[in-house]
């Protein structure tokens, strides 16, 4: 995968062909960011007035903000005027016509990951109708959901068809001024997913093994909003184990989850953006704000993530435990190889009584990879009998990689119980030799040892996702042992 150069520069250096005012019909707008850009995006998406105002407010706040510098990641400054903030979803006309035209290296990786044949084609950008009739699959899926009153659609569609829900919930978990990237996203977000589960409904399927393919063209400023109403349950899958390429280097997504009384949201992510070549050139910068709000009593939000991609990852999926007896969980595997940098972790904000949070973070560094776990556990004065358990393990491969742990604990209520465990280990030559002496190849051995290390997290993933994730770790670490 290392031989494909990114197209960023090419795109950025393209001269724009159209005038500014007349652009509503065109595919892309000129690069640069101003109030006019924000208005244009909103107009192109035919958004209601309240949303435009919301975006403009975010933009004004953003202008006064600076990028955070506390994270231990390093990259050249980003010129925000040198980015194109809107382009219509690409048509597949220009894509390869069949698998024969696809880079064999890419296909090899899909095969190693065990991605089903028809999905490989779609992922590689082969026109969908050449592969199967996606519409019928999507329709069956949608029928089943709408029977139960579940809304699952793109964010843009939700804006058109359910503006009242958007108005009620958007920005209530991640306020527009929350941080630099969230503000930027709020001003210019492209598209994403919207989910609403009505009271008492248990979503009958994982959202969305099929839709992970469809969700590909959401652009670099993705916006997702998931609401589980009272007593509802949903398990949502984001991303894909197949290597994802994108011509946009900067990704700044926002995900908001709202769980009302006694509702449960399970959100699983496998992130495998292009990490750049071995020297770290051309990889994706992934600056994500993900937060869940356990708004009602007895609600539960669980984040599970497997992060193997991106040149830089800046990501802290968090839970606000507002409702009494609510539960927050964070299970994470982050892998950095070559020159990848990851600063990731979570925040558990305990506000309600008897709230409980669990954090299990597994970091794996290989090559020159560098990663930090940054976790905040805050127990507010109101959070009587709050409990947190944090376990934070790092596995190092080789001696040129780095792993750091920064746990922050703030306790304002004396009844709190907070437990923290941390460990750092190295994949020992002894373990490797032992496995190989039993007949396993070095690569299988590493993959087995690493998967053993990550077991507590993988068991939280939906079954087939877990299988893919295991393979993914193996593939991502290829070449990291002699």
């Amino acid at each position, binding site marked *: 995968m290392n031989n494909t150069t990114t197209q960023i520069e090419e795109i950025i250096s393209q001269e724009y062909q159209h005038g500014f005012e007349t652009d509503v019909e065109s595919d892309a707008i000129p690069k640069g960011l101003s109030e006019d850009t924000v208005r244009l995006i909103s107009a192109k998406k035919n958004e209601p007035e309240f949303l435009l105002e919301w975006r403009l407010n975010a933009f004004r706040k953003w202008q006064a903000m600076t990028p955070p510098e506390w994270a231990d990641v390093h990259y050249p400054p980003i010129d925000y005027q040198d980015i194109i903030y809107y382009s219509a979803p690409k048509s597949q006309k220009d894509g390869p016509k069949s698998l024969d035209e696809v880079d064999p290296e890419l296909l090899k990786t899909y095969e190693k990951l065990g991605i089903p044949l028809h999905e490989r084609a779609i992922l590689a950008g082969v026109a969908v109708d050449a592969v199967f009739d996606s519409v019928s699959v999507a329709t069956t899926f949608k029928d089943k959901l709408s029977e139960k009153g579940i809304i699952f659609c793109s964010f843009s569609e939700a804006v058109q068809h359910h503006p009242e829900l958007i108005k009620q919930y958007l920005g209530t978990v991640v306020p527009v001024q929350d941080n630099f990237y969230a503000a930027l996203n709020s001003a210019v977000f492209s598209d994403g997913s919207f989910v609403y589960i009505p009271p008492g409904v248990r979503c009958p399927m994982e959202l969305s093994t099929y839709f992970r393919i469809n969700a590909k063209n959401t652009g670099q400023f993705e916006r997702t909003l998931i609401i589980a109403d009272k007593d509802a349950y949903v398990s949502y899958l984001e991303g894909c184990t197949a290597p994802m390429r994108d011509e946009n280097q900067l990704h700044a997504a926002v995900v908001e989850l709202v769980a009302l009384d006694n509702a449960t949201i399970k959100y699983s992510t496998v992130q495998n953006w292009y990490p750049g070549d071995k020297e770290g050139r051309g990889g994706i910068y992934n600056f994500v704000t993900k937060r869940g709000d356990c708004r009602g009593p007895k609600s539960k939000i669980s984040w599970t993530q497997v992060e193997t991609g991106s040149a830089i990852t800046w990501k802290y999926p968090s839970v606000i435990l507002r409702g009494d007896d609510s539960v927050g969980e964070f299970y994470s595997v982050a892998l950095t190889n070559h020159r990848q940098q990851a600063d990731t972790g979570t925040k558990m904000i305990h506000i309600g009584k008897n709230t409980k949070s669990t954090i299990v973070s597994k970091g794996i560094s290989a090559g020159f990879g560098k990663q930090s776990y940054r976790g905040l556990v805050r127990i507010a004065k109101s959070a009587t009998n709050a409990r947190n358990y944090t376990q934070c393990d790092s596995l190092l491969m080789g001696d040129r990689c780095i792993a750091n742990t920064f746990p922050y604990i703030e306790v304002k209520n004396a009844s709190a119980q907070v437990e923290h465990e941390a460990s750092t280990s190295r994949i020992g030559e002894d373990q490797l030799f032992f496995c190989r002496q039993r*007949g396993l190849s070095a690569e299988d051995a590493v993959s087995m040892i690493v998967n053993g290390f990550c077991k507590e997290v993988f068991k939280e993933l939906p079954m087939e996702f877990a299988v893919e994730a295991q393979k993914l770790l193996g593939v991502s670490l290829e070449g990291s042992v002699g």
Partner: protein
Amino acid sequence: MLEIKNLQATVAEKSILKGINLTVNPGEVHAIMGPNGSGKSTLSNVLAGREHIDVTAGEVLYNGKNLLDMDVEERAREGLFLAFQYPVEIPGVGNIYLLKAALNAKRQHQGLPELDAMDFLNLVKEKVKLMEMNEAMLYRSVNEGFSGGEKKRNEILQMAVLEPTLAILDETDSGLDIDALKIVAKGVNSLRSPQRAMILVTHYQRLLDYIKPDFVHVLAGGKIVRSGGPELALELEKEGYAWIDPSAKQSTVNL
């Protein structure tokens, strides 16, 4: 089956093996004894392919092939098994998972299909019974939290499942209680056959009471200084290693 000729090896530029000659034929059991630090584990590890040991001279033929040219895993798949003196722990990896991966790697190498889940389970359970182990051990992480003796027994379980052609047991008897020793010996003896050979590294005669060796060798200062039949082990038990020429013992004293 195994022919070691003038094998010399260094670790961290220190000469450890100084010209080993040893021939092992199918069906034979060889015991290797010798003082601490004389190079017994080093020899076992060289045969298994441990990378940090540099072979500086000599050759090793295994079933007619140049063993030293083969990868660690290739040697294993060709039927060479090493029971480690200090078995490692692998957190999070189920014992049964390791057994399955190992067995299938070997079967694939032999051009055999993978065992299906039922057949595999039956096979493993049978071996667990042979080793008088608790089935629950199968589902625990490899050696994690195992007692010293349990780890050793687990090595022999792996051996029983993999059915090696040449098994090298590096002090598998150390740390075993009497009952466990008998069980391990039973496991080892069940594998004895005219096609298989074994090298037992041990300090004690008592293992050899249960597993009768055909030959006993004394390794001292990186060389085999004496070879004989089972009676040699009895003699060593009585007399120790005082008789060994101090110049041969030199390197073992220079720790």
